[in-house]
Every structure is written in C-alpha cells, then in structure tokens.
C-alpha cells in the first residue's frame, strides 16, 4: 500500500505543478511583459557618473490587487526601489524584497533569478517639477514555471532535511541505547515487563510476555505519553529491533510491529507541549485548554488504530504477506 501512496504523492505533485504552471501561463498570472505604473518617491538622487535613483514605490492596495487580479493587500504598499537609467527614459530597476513587501511579489521572487529581489526594465519615467518624485512605468522580469521550480527545490531541500534529521538522532540514540543496555543487563527491564505482562499479553499476543521487546515498548509508550520525544524515539527503535528478532520474514512488518507503530502514530500525549507553547506565544488567555480535548482526540486515534490493525491483520492479503517460503 505504501508503494501506491508514495507513487501517487509524487505523481499528483508533478501533475498538479504542471497543471498550475499551464494555468499561470495561459492566464498570465504574473503579468509578464505587461507594464505596471506607480509613483516613485525619490529619496536619493544620482551622484555624478552613475544615473541611479533610490527611494520607494507607493502603490495603493486596490491598484495592486486589480493589476494582478488578486485579493488586495491590507495597507498602502511602500516598496524600496533602486533605478538606474541608461538614457532619458530607459533603464533597469531592482526591487529589494523584505517582510513589508507585497506577499505576491515575494512569492514571485521565489522563482526569479534572485530569491530576495525582483528586477525589471523601465519603460518610461516622468519626473515631477521639483524632482522629488516620478511616475514610472516598468515591466518586471518574466516569471515562468513557478510550481515546477518549487517542487524541484522541495525535492532537494527535503532530501537534505531527511539526512539532517537522521544524523541528528545519532547522539540521543547512542545515549539512550547505552542506558537501556545497562537497565537490561541489570534485569530492570525484566521486572518492568513482568509487572505489565497482563496488559501487554492482550495487546501483543504474538510477543512472548517476557521478551525484551515488551520492556522497550513499555518504556517507549511511557516516554511518549510524558512528551519526552528525545527518549521515546530511541526506545521505540530499540523495541523495533527486538520485535524484528521475532520476525520470521525479515523485511516484512509483523502484526506486533504494526500494532506498536499504530500506538505511536496515535500519539497519545498527556501534555501536548508544542501546541500549548504555540498557543501561549499567540497570546492565548488559556493555552492549556486543549489538554483535555487532545487526550480525547488522541485516545480516539489510538483505539481506532489498534482496532484497525487487529482487524486488518486477518485479511487474506496481509496474512499471505507473512507466509514464509519453505520451498
């Protein structure tokens, strides 16, 4: 099933990206080659030898929204601009984009030559009497294939992210696997498994109740519930390793592995710390209000997941996957 989901994620991504880009081309979403007209407030006049003006463009939100046919910005746009003329009415300009720039332009810049600025050509410029402002007509650099460029970038970025995450695990993995090994040698894990055996026997009938996997799974679930992610992952991976020792068919997930994984993806946490922190940072009067609701939600997820795992494992298709070739 994962094969199909994986392939469809990528196939849908490419089709959608191509579709979006074709739509953008036919509608000319980014108004390529259409001149934009705006008022230019000059703050810095040219020094001898270089015909460069600096200042800001002042654009009314309605005009901007109308030009690009989008929902208009909330307030008046003031965009810094530097403009260099090569003749009386021709030249180039550069929009350095920052947090105050229109979101649409920032989005366009992502697939422009430089990611934080847009360049353009001046079509005409008329200075006011006192040379403190001007009316500029300009064409921005053409923007094409925004989505295709975006998925290419995402592919490269996420490949890197995956390696960073994995490498970042090495330290805490080593720490916890070392500590767990001590607990194992000392017989502590066995004590723990014995106490909780009545529960674990029911949830994981395929795993012998005194197997080391049970201890690791219990520690993983406890650490998860307390929100100790740094400890939970190493313990979970340790549990997977122990479960794999019971696996008759290496490379294929056993019933116990799937049930254990579903408990983990259900994500039952007593205190959803990240969500609470974000709520507090956004100025909530009662950030902790979601503790109860999250426990209800995660319990639904965990119970439904474990039940689904137990039912699905009986399907002939999945049973067949587990048969060991003896031929």
């Amino acid at each position: 099933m994962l094969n199909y989901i994986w392939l469809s994620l990528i196939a849908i991504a490419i089709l959608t990206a191509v579709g979006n880009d074709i739509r953008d081309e036919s509608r000319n979403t980014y108004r390529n080659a259409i001149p934009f007209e705006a008022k230019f407030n000059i703050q810095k006049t040219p020094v001898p030898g270089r015909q460069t003006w600096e200042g800001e463009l002042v654009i009314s939100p309605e005009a901007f929204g109308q030009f690009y046919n989008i929902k208009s910005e909330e307030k008046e746009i003031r965009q810094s601009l530097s403009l260099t003329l090569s003749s009386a009415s021709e030249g180039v300009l550069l929009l350095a984009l920052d947090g105050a720039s229109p979101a649409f332009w920032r989005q366009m810049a992502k697939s422009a030559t430089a990611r934080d600025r847009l360049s353009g050509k001046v079509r005409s410029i008329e200075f006011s009497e006192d040379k403190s402002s001007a009316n500029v007509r300009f064409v921005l650099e053409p923007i094409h294939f925004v989505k295709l460029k975006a998925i290419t970038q995402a592919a490269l970025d996420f490949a890197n992210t995956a390696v960073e995450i994995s490498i970042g695990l090495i330290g805490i993995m080593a720490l916890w696997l070392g500590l767990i090994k001590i607990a194992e040698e000392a017989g502590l894990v066995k004590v723990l498994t014995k106490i909780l055996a009545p529960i674990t026997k029911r949830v994981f009938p395929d795993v012998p109740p005194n197997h080391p996997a049970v201890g690791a799974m219990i520690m993983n679930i406890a650490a998860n519930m307390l929100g100790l992610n740094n400890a939970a992952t190493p313990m979970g991976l340790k549990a997977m390793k122990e479960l794999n020792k019971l696996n008759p068919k290496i490379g294929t997930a056993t019933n116990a592995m799937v049930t254990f994984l579903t408990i983990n993806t259900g994500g039952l946490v007593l205190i959803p710390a990240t969500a609470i922190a974000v709520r507090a940072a956004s100025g909530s009067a009662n950030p902790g209000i979601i503790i109860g609701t999250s426990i209800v939600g995660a319990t639904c997820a965990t119970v439904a997941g474990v039940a689904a795992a137990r039912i699905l494992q009986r399907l002939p298709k999945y049973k067949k996957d587990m048969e060991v070739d003896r031929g």
Partner: protein
Amino acid sequence: MTVGDLFRSIISFISVIAIPAMIIIFLAWGFFKKVKMYEVFVEGAKEGFDTAVRIIPYLVAMLFAIGVFRASGAMDVLTSVLSPVTDLIGMPSEALPMALLRPLSGSGSLGLMTEIMKVHGPDSFLGVLVSTMYGSSETTFYVLAVYFGSVQIKNTRHAVAAGLIADFFGMLGALFICKILFGS
C-alpha cells in the same frame, strides 16, 4: 486551582523529573547488580550510529515525496475536492488542510496551526480546534519511515492503512469534542 490545573502541574512535574529519575534508577540498579556499567553503556551506545544511518534512505524517500506534494499546491486542490464532504459533518473549511497535513508533515502542520491562530486568534473555536488536532495525532508517515527504516522493513503490510484510520478517527474525535465543549 481547578482539577485541570492540578492535572497539568502534576504531569509537567513528572515530565521534568522523568529523565533524571530514569537515569538514576538505571544506574543505581546496575550498581547493585554489579553491572560493568561503563563497558555495557558503550556496548549499547555503539548501535546508535548504525540505527540512525540505517534510517536515512527511508526518510529521504518519504520526505522527498511529501515535500514535492506540498510544494506543488496539490493540497489546495485536495482541500477543494474534499470540502463538500467535510462540510456535511460540520468541519470548518479552514481546519480541513490541518486534518490533511497532520499525518504527512510535522513542521508543515505546526506552521499551519500557527498561521490559523494568528489569523483567527488562539481562543477562537477554530484556534482551539486546530491546536487540538495538532495534539491529537503524530506525524504518521514520519514515524512509519523512521521506525520501519531502522529495521529495514520494506513491506509495511497494513501499517499505512491502520495509521491513516487512526489519524482519521483522531481528527474526528478532535472535531466532535471541540464542538461539544466549545462549539456555539
């Protein structure tokens, strides 16, 4: 002090002392059982590097697919296709992307939650709903890649289906409990 506050302070206290307590208990137990602790620790820790490195190909495959999916704008298409269905059960259309993104991407859904709370306020119904949704599930595909990757499982059998059913019910549970407690 309400019951909720008490519960919260007890749990956060346990969370804070859990790791130091575990380390102390492990070491003390080992000491009394005369385990050669330094040697055993190093022996166990050796596996850390291999395990982390083994995960890399699985995680690259998973994050790459999810990354291009999100970058392509397919999420918007999926949202508009599914919103008539979710309207029927009373899920606000702003919360639908959250439900769809939660199993796929942890950082993505975190960003989305922050964004929605910024726009609608953290104490609005929508703010409470999306943060409950965020807290009601784990990033299924990430857990799947990391856990199965560490033991080189390629045939995941019914794990994806079970994980997605869990997410589906987690999101439904979050929606209904929020509607009952905070809905107007």
